[in-house]
């Protein structure tokens, strides 16, 4: 069941043409409301951050924290390590929810299995309000840092609950970590992820979607800042780096992981990358909770300057850039993962064009789109 998006929620419209058995043309119409951030102009820093977290509430942590970080950089604020660890935890919690959500809610549809609503509900119960176990006043996104008062027993309990759901409902045991455990896991086919991998394998689609589009490299902030400062909208709408489109997200982050690398660069490697990241994120969270101590935060007032907030969100690298004058926004820009991955000549286009469409081209395109994971509803037409 899926409902059409409202215009304001944005959507992607993909038209794919098949000629002589191959994908011959792709048109990408991006209806995401990209310029909505420019309307933050005139807002006070804190109000703009809150608005960000509220409007983009699907990936609220990543958006709110990228915004707060941009404000802090603009004001020359340095945060204590503890605040940094707490924020990293919040973004990882969101990543776990998003990645596990694919397995529980989206992948079942590809393999004719029922969606796992109860498991997702349990996972959300553990992680959706995770921020309150760190910032009891709910001010996790405050520029300068909110009042950090970690409740270690609660954090530990929530993480244990999340790990239990993921282990049981996503992996049915230990997460596969190398090629041999991956193959065994796929053969067993006990969860939607394993069934999806088995289906991709049996259809011969494991390498489909591989392309020369490179993982988005780390970018020095001054270079990125300069690119955004002089951008009039084309870079945030159709970004390139080093003169070429790039790919961002779990596959870009984990392309070098031994399991992912051994599976190539196609659909199978991308599926594995998401699962490897899900498992790694939970483990990293379990280490991070012990590094956090209480911190009162700092007052953020009347800053002037420009700053970047860069966050590795579930779907890929998210960048916010702000210019402030006396604590008010004079310019606001957002560069989001969907614009990298669905660039008209990017990972989707290069993964499709010229390749054999086979006897189920619609389904093949849907697999690659799901692997690249747009943050909006996606309408696909194959003709």
């Amino acid at each position, binding site marked *: 069941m899926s409902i059409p998006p*409202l215009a304001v929620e944005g959507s992607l419209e993909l038209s794919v043409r098949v000629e002589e058995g191959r994908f011959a043309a792709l048109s990408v119409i991006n209806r995401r*409301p990209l310029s909505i951030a420019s*309307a933050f102009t005139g807002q006070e820093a804190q109000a703009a951050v809150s608005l960000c977290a509220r409007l983009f509430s*699907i990936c609220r942590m990543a958006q709110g924290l990228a915004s707060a970080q941009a404000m802090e950089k603009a004001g020359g604020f340095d945060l204590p390590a503890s605040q940094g660890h707490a924020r990293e935890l919040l973004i990882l919690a969101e990543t776990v929810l998003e990645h596990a959500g694919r397995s529980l*809610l989206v992948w079942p549809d590809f393999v004719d299995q029922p969606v796992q609503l109860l498991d997702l509900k349990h996972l959300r119960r553990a992680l959706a309000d995770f921020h309150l176990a760190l910032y009891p006043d709910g001010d996790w996104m405050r520029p300068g840092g909110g009042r950090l008062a970690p409740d270690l027993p609660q954090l530990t309990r929530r993480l244990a609950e999340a790990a239990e759901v993921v282990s049981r409902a996503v992996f049915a045991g230990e997460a596969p970590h190398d090629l041999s455990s991956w193959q065994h896991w796929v053969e067993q086919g006990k969860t939607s992820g394993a069934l999806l991998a088995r289906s991709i394998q049996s259809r011969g689609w494991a390498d489909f979607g591989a392309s020369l589009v490179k993982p988005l490299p780390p970018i020095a902030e001054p270079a990125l800042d300069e690119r955004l400062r002089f951008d009039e909208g084309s870079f945030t709408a159709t970004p390139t780096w080093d003169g070429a489109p790039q790919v961002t997200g779990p596959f870009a982050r984990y392309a070098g992981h031994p399991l992912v690398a051994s599976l190539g660069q196609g659909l199978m490697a991308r599926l594995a990358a998401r699962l490897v990241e899900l498992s790694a994120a939970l483990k990293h969270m379990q280490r991070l909770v012990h590094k956090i101590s209480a911190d009162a935060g700092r007052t953020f007032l009347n800053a002037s300057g420009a700053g970047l907030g860069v966050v590795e969100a579930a779907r890929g690298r998210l960048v916010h850039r702000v210019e402030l004058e006396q604590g008010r926004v004079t310019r606001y820009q957002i560069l989001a993962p969907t614009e990298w991955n669905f660039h008209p000549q990017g990972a989707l286009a290069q993964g499709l064009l010229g390749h054999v469409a086979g006897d189920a081209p619609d389904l093949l395109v849907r697999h690659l789109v799901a692997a690249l994971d747009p943050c909006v509803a996606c309408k696909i037409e194959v003709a």
Partner: protein
Amino acid sequence: MCMAIPSRVLSTEGEFATVECFGVERVVSLMLMDEPVAVGDYLIIQSGSFAMEKVEEQAALESLAYLETVLADPAGGAV
């Protein structure tokens, strides 16, 4: 979806609710909600058609008012 626009509940029927936002009515599932939902509540919809959370009325109205001003400005709407 990326933008989460609060939708107001017009009616509920079991595990489903009819919600409205900017004049558009949609039927959504309440199966992922962890709290009771009543007519007049504001919900965030995600993953196709699932209501994920309730938003306080004041926050919802502020978001909607903001979006209305952005949408009224041709430079701020969808590209």
